[in-house]
């Protein structure tokens, strides 16, 4: 029975680790997307400001 427990634990633990890495990456990407959107909006605003001044 011991071998069985080791084998199944190994398989499931690997999937869990994969999922955890997935979640970490997802978190990073979400934050990156937010900051990129913010950058883009700021850039857009600065440009329209310039255009109005001109």
């Amino acid at each position, binding site marked *: 029975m011991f071998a069985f427990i080791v084998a199944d634990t190994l398989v499931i633990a690997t999937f869990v680790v994969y999922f955890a890495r997935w979640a970490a990456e997802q978190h990073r990407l979400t934050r990156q997307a937010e900051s*990129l959107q913010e950058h883009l909006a700021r850039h857009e605003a600065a440009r329209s400001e310039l255009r109005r001044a001109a």
Partner: protein
Amino acid sequence: MSLRNRLHAACGLSAIAFVAVAVWMAACIAPTEQSMGDIQRVLYVHVSVAWLGLCGFAVMAVSGVGYLLTRNLRFDHWFQSAGELGWITSGLTLATGSIWAHEAWGTWWEWEPRLTASFVLWLIYCAILLVRGSLDDPHQRARIGGVLGVMGAADLPLVMMATRWFRGMHPVSPQMDPLMRWTLLVNVLAFTALFAWLITERRKQLRFRQSNDDLQRTLIGRMKCSHS
């Protein structure tokens, strides 16, 4: 959380529940094998991951052809996620097989056909992922991956044949109790469901990453424009 996300989460949870049932069946429901005893229970998970290792190749080959025909990076996201999970499952095949071999044959490793074949399979996965990891341009990565994926899939049956004729020791398909067959089937299906769910989630994530990259690229382009 949108409806779609909820649906995805529900799929994931049911896949996990399914796997739990499968493991429980393998541990408690399936009868103990007479000659080998409890060690034989390793087989349920081993066969499942071995099957998934092959599935990974099939997905890679199909999405590789898809990319080469359409040059759409969507296919490459399938390719990458199938490659990663295929690499993991074929690695697990080696690990669980090794555990089984240690108990049943008294050795961790034997240059036996199926073992050799899955080792070669794992090496091909390693090589493809390594090469792809060293490339920066997404289209170049997709093109190299596509060609290698098709080559690997074309090679697979030949590897199997060659190693099988070479020497034989691995049990092919022994007589089994019907309950054992059911347990095996449930295990294969459950792990396949988990695998499919992980692949689709990972693919979605890769697409997300690409849209971030596109955004970053437009941002870089705009900045270059306004500075000059």
